[in-house]
C-alpha cells in the first residue's frame, strides 16, 4: 500500500510537470493552430541556461534567467519564423518548427556533450516521510509549483483581458481582429508563456532522482506530447488531465514492472505512447478536444 501511495504521488508530481509542458503546447496550438515540434528544444534551452548559470549567479537568479530566456526564444521563434513564414498551411508551419527544433537541439547537445549538468537546486536529495510513505522533496516542490503555475494560468485565461483576447482569437481570429484584438501580440505572448512554462518543467525533469540535465533530457520532454494529444490538442483541461494520466501511468508501470515482466522491461517509457494510442483509437479528437487531429 505504501508503495502504491508513493508511486501515485510521484506519478501525480511528474504528471503535473508534463502538464506544464503540455499546457504550453496547447496554448500555442490554440493561439496559432501550429503544432510546435520545437517545444522540447525550448525546454532544453531553458534547462541548459539554469544549469550553466547557477554556479555563477546562484540558483534562483539562474532559474529566473532560464525562464525568461526560454520565453524570449519562444517569442523570437514566433516573431521571426512563424509570423514571417508566408505559407498557406499550418502543417507546413509544424514542419518548420521541426527544423527549428533540430537547429536548437543540435547546438545544445553539442554544448552539453557527454556531461550531466547539476541544476544547483536547494532541495538536493532530501526526502520527507509521512507515516511509512517516503517522498523526495523535489517531487513535492514540483507538484506544488506546477499546481500553482497552472492555477495562475487558468485564472488569467479566464479572467484577464489577455485571456479574453486569447480565447477570442482562438475561437475566431478574423472576428477577434475586427474587435481590435492584436493577433500578433496574442500569438507572441502565447509562445512566450509556453516557453517559460517549459523552462520550469525542465528544472523539475532534471532534479533528483534524475542525476541532472544531459542530452537525453529533450527526449524525456517528448512524453508530454502524448499528454497534450490525448487530452485534445486544443483543450487546456485536456493538457492537465493528459499530463496526469501519463505521469501516473508511467510511474505505476515503472514501479510495478517486475510484476508485469511479461510486458517487457522499460514499459514505463513506452506506456505514455501506448496510452495515447488507445485513447485516440476510441476518441480521435482526444479526451477534451474539439478538433480532430486530421486538421493538423
Amino acid at each position, binding site marked *: 500500500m505504501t508503495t502504491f501511495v508513493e508511486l501515485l504521488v510521484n506519478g501525480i508530481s511528474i504528471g503535473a510537470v508534463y502538464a506544464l509542458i503540455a499546457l504550453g503546447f496547447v496554448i500555442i496550438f490554440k493561439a496559432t493552430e501550429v503544432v510546435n515540434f520545437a517545444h522540447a528544444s525550448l525546454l532544453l534551452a531553458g534547462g541548459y541556461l539554469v544549469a550553466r548559470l547557477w554556479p555563477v549567479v546562484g540558483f534562483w537568479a539562474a532559474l529566473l534567467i532560464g525562464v525568461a530566456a526560454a520565453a524570449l526564444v519562444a517569442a523570437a521563434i514566433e516573431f521571426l519564423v512563424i509570423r514571417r513564414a508566408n505559407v498557406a498551411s499550418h502543417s507546413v508551419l509544424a514542419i518548420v518548427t521541426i527544423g527549428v527544433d533540430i537547429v536548437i537541439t543540435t547546438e545544445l547537445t553539442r554544448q552539453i556533450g557527454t556531461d550531466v549538468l547539476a541544476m544547483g537546486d536547494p532541495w538536493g536529495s532530501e526526502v520527507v516521510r509521512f507515516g511509512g510513505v517516503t517522498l523526495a522533496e523535489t517531487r513535492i516542490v514540483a507538484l506544488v509549483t506546477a499546481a500553482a503555475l497552472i492555477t495562475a494560468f487558468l485564472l488569467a485565461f479566464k479572467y484577464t*483581458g489577455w485571456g*479574453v*483576447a486569447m*480565447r*477570442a482569437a482562438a*475561437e*475566431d*481570429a*478574423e*472576428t*477577434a*481582429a*475586427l*474587435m*481590435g*484584438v*492584436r*493577433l500578433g501580440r496574442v500569438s507572441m505572448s502565447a509562445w512566450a508563456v509556453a516557453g517559460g512554462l517549459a523552462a520550469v518543467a525542465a528544472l523539475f525533469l532534471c532534479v533528483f532522482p534524475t542525476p541532472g540535465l544531459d542530452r537525453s533530457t529533450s527526449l524525456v520532454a517528448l512524453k508530454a506530447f502524448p499528454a497534450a494529444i490525448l487530452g485534445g490538442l486544443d483543450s487546456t483541461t485536456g493538457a492537465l488531465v493528459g499530463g496526469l494520466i501519463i505521469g501516473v501511468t508511467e510511474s505505476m508501470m515503472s514501479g510495478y514492472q517486475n510484476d508485469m515482466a511479461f510486458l517487457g522491461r522499460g514499459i514505463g517509457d513506452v506506456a505514455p505512447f501506448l496510452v495515447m494510442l488507445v485513447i485516440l483509437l476510441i476518441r480521435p479528437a482526444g479526451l477534451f478536444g474539439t478538433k480532430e487531429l486530421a486538421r493538423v
Partner: protein
Amino acid sequence: MADLAVSDLVVGYGPVRALRGVSMRVPSGSIVAVLGANGAGKSTLLRAISGTLRFHRGSCQGVVTLGDQRLTGLDAASVVGRGVVQVPEGRRVFARMTVEENLRAGGLGRSRRDYAKAHDQVAALFPVLKERARQRAGLLSGGEQQMLAIGRALMAGPTTLLLDEPTLGLAPLMAARITETIKEINSLGTSVLLVEQNVAMALSLASHAYVLEVGEVVLEGTAAELRESDEVRRRYLGIGDAVEGALETRTLSRWS
C-alpha cells in the same frame, strides 16, 4: 468626427475580381446604405475598409480614408483604433464565450471609464444582454446574437459602424427591432454604413444609398431618389413592371 471615403477600390481574391473601382462616401453622422444581390461585393467592401481581406487571401488597390487619415494598409486592430468598427455578416459571436465575455472582447484596450460608459450604453440599448450576461453566446437566439454582435462592436466606441446584413435571417419583428436600434445608435452620433439585402428597410433608414452589382456601383443617390427610381422599384422592391430580362430574373430570384 470625419467622413469615411472609399475611392477607386479594386479588390481581387486571386484571379476573382470582387470589386472593380468602387467609390463612395459616408458623411459624418449619416446612415449610408449599400444594396446589392448576393455576390455583388458588399462584404468585400467592408473587408477592404476593415483591413480583413488578408483573412480571405484578398488583395486591394485604391484608397480608404477617414477624414484626412488613410486607413488603407492598416491592420484590422488599427482600423478599430481609429473608430471604424464592423459587425460582420452572420453575427460571428464568440459562441464558446459568455455574453459578458463577448462584450469584454469588444472593449479590450479601452480605459476603465470608457469601458464602463460603453457597457452602460449597451445595457440600455439591449437589456436582454444584461439578463443573459453569464450565458454562453452560442445559446442565444439569432436575434439576440445580432444584438450581442452590435453591442460588442459598440464596446469599442465606434465613430463609424459598419453593419453587414444585420437583419439577415431574422423574424420580421426582430428585424424591425434591430432597425430601430440602428436608428438610435445613429442618433447618438455614430455614422453607419449599412449593407443590406432588405432594400425597403435600408432605404427607410439611410439618407443616401449605393447599389452594387458585380463589383461596381451601378446606381447611387439619396434614399428618396432611389425609392422613386424605376430600376430599384422593379428589381429590388418588386413593384411595377413585370417584364424582366434574364439579368433581372437572376437577381430577383435571390431576393425571395
